[in-house]
């Protein structure tokens, strides 16, 4: 019975996604009035769209699961996910918009005037995108398994197919309004069940949560190392640093900034994003705590990520539980689909533009059209992470997303911050930084996944942010100082363009008599 509700909700979300993808622009307005047609996307709507795309499986299910499993320290995760936008706001948003770049490789090329840096950036976009897609697919499988009991590949495959179809059609992502709706859909799907569950909890007489404790600490105490994670202070700060700086390097977030008409609008958008994300993350820990009240033990062999989906059945009964479960499952699938299609679009764009198109043209002697090439790229963009997601046991959604943040914070964030604020950045320095950052971050990830260590080494490999990010900054600065000849010729001019407010240049001002 409860299955039926949930499957209907999931089916509905997938169908709507596909329909919007197929019809694309036809859903938007036709007018004969230039004033109506010429209205750019407002910062508020664009912020909703960014938030809608950003809130992934890790936010919707993963945070609650981690709070449930590992206690108070994990409350820093939603803080970190949000604070990343504050850093983005102060350091990057407006200059990036003024650079005219659409993607991260575009920015690298515009700033450093180097094809090599562009190529490296594209490879990183593809790598980070794949790493970020894996937990989305795993989350889909896990959610499907939790609500229906079907094997996990069913859910993953469903999301892979829907994402591939909507990206290959090229329609869905382009519409800001649809992504903006996604945010409000996710917020409703998370907040309404949370309020209902809280009300039921109060009606039950507000029972206290069962607080477990182990040798190293207690669930409710911050920085106690509960769950056998030693050096909790280091881990917490390191995670926080990676999340703060990693947000600016997420490929699917940055492309949305192009929609802002100017740097000022980009700043306003970011401020609104911080507010919207803050609102969303108020609700996620509620599930973790209520889980400790009603579900002290999860069924054997299930990951804590499925906690939110199991909670309604434990708190309520009958149709209410079914409906709440269905709302949560539908919201979770909306989260997988919107984030995954945003990522797949960025990855497919990078594969298509920088790897595939020129080669395909040579092989087929100019026969392949741009669309064919993009479809192959979209296929590669979803198939590789799908293979990875089935080959590896899920690590926990928020943990895997954390890995993507680790790579992005060790590569793109130094490139962006130094590229925007330091004239002396040289091509060699940027290349050295990207190579060292990506190499060490990937090594740390592979080592900590394949052969987990204990002690300081284990903590440093699992959360490399605190040592790796300063190291990469240092590598870039020292290499750049050593190779002043490789500073791009137009660096001074580019920086002036990045930092001059539009009100001075008179460009792109949406004024009307």
């Amino acid at each position, binding site marked *: 019975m409860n299955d039926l509700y949930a499957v209907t909700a999931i089916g509905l979300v997938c169908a709507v996604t596909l329909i919007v993808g197929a019809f694309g622009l036809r859903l938007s*307005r036709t007018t004969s009035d*230039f004033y109506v047609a010429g209205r750019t996307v407002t910062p508020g709507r664009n912020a909703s769209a960014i938030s809608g795309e950003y809130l992934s499986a890790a936010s919707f299910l993963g945070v609650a699961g981690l709070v449930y499993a590992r206690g108070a320290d994990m409350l820093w995760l939603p803080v970190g996910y949000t604070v990343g936008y504050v850093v983005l706001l102060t350091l990057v948003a407006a200059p990036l918009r003024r650079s005219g770049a659409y993607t991260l490789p575009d920015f690298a090329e515009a700033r450093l005037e180097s094809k090599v840096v562009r190529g490296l950036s594209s490879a990183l976009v593809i790598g980070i995108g794949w790493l970020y897609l894996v937990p989305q697919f795993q989350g889909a499988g896990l959610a499907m398994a939790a609500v229906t009991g079907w094997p996990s590949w069913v859910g993953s495959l469903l999301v892979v197919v829907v994402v591939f179809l909507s990206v290959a059609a090229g329609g869905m992502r*382009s519409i800001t309004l649809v992504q903006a709706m996604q945010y409000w859909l996710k917020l409703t799907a998370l907040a309404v069940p949370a309020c209902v569950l809280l009300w039921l909890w109060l009606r039950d007489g507000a029972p206290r949560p069962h607080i477990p404790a182990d040798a190293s600490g207690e669930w409710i105490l911050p920085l106690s190392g509960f769950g056998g994670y030693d050096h909790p202070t280091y881990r917490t700060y390191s995670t926080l640093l990676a999340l703060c700086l990693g947000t600016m390097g997420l490929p699917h977030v940055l492309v949305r900034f192009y929609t802002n008409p100017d740097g000022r609008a980009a700043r306003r958008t970011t401020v609104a994003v911080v507010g919207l994300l803050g609102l969303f993350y108020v609700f996620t820990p509620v599930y973790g705590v209520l889980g400790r009240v009603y579900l002290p033990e999860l069924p054997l062999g299930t990951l804590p990520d499925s906690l939110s989906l199991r909670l309604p059945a434990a708190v309520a009964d009958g149709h209410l539980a079914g409906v709440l479960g269905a709302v949560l499952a539908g919201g979770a699938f909306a989260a997988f689909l919107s984030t995954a299609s945003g990522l797949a679009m960025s990855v497919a764009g990078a594969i298509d533009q920088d790897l595939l198109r020129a080669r395909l043209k040579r092989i087929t002697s100019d026969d392949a059209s741009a669309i064919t090439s993009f479809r192959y790229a979209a296929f590669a963009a979803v198939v590789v992470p799908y293979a990875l997601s089935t080959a590896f046991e899920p690590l926990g959604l928020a943990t895997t997303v954390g890995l993507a943040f680790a790579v992005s914070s060790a590569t793109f964030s130094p490139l962006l911050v130094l590229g925007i604020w330091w004239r002396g950045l040289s091509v060699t320095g940027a290349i050295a930084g990207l190579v060292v950052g990506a190499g060490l971050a990937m090594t740390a990830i592979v080592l900590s996944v394949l052969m987990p260590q204990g002690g300081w080494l284990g903590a440093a490999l699992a959360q490399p942010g605190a040592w790796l990010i300063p190291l990469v900054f240092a590598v870039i600065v020292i290499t750049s100082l050593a190779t002043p000849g490789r500073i791009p010729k137009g660096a001074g001019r580019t920086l002036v363009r990045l930092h001059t407010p539009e009100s001075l240049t008179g460009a792109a001002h949406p004024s009307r008599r």
Partner: protein
Amino acid sequence: MRSGIHLPTAVLTAGTLIVVWALLLLRSRSRSRSRGFLSATDRATYETLHTASLAGRQLRHGLGPESAREAAGYLRSMLTARAIAICDTHAVLAWDGEGEHHRPRAHSDAQPALRGAGTTVLDQRDVACNDPNCELLSAVVAPLVVDEHVVGALTAYGPHTDAGLARATEEVAQWVAAQVELADLDQQRTRAMEAELQALRAQISPHFVYNSLAAIASFVRTDPGRARELLLEFADFTRYALRRAGQFTTLAEELRNCERYLVLEQARFGDRLKINLLIAPESLPTTVPCLAVQPLVENAVRHGLAGKVGPGTVTITARDIGAQTEISIEDDGVGANPEHIRGVLDGEVRSDSVGLGNVDARLRQIYGDDLGLVVETAPGAGMKVTFTVPKYAPGVHVSS
């Protein structure tokens, strides 16, 4: 955290992959070596050619202190001289090799050649300095002649000179002069292209000016308020079309200019001209060349609708397709013969629909040949003109 990987298997797989990669690398190495078996003469030739191409790359920037300094090293190794100097007509541009203290005198050494004496050989009396250990005792000076003017000189220094060195210096000097000439041509071509672009941009069709003013005049008595409005639109339109700065603008700005144009045309056509807009708001910040859309709209109105009996519609569509924006202008007017349009786009047919050929040429010049105009038309079937612009292209900025 559980690891789902069997550690020995993982290590084994990684090891196998590394071994396979190393084997492939070795194979490709050995292949290239077996293919690369050359005689000593061949190798010397190829090395010289390679050095020449490296020097040529520098000299293609023209004859200046920086390019001369970069090229001097390569030129010296081509001549196998102890030292070489490159001078222009005023000063020494570069010195490469030993005996840097000869540098201040290099320009006076080159004087005969610079004055038109052809290749000259200088001996000990002219060159030798006070330093007994200095081995620069003689030199060959060859002039760099571009367009029958001497623009500089190449001097090779050594302990003694022979006919071989003289000949080689002369040949290298001729080659350098040819490269400098090519650099001049490059510069001229760029300048010609810029001039062409300027000329293309500043084209407001005389018909339009005449028709607009006539339409405004017809309102002056009957509806002075509207006449004033139209006059202001006309002023804004001309300011936009004739402004000199900024080769690029945003699509939003370009559409605003189309609106001005259409308001003026509607004053003339009245209800016969209908406008349909289907604009994705995400496409509005896209950077487009100035006056890329308006000439196409003008073409649709003047050639599509003006000849049509009854009302006509112009539809402007802008779609956001990921990293690109697709813009199309469609009319349901009289259409045209596809062969004629092909001729216009190729620049073979001189027609009064300058807009099409002009926009097409500029798009191709800025974004490459793949992104020109696509025209779908047939007589009596209207016309649809489509083009795509990338959201980002290197060197393309608003207000540059």
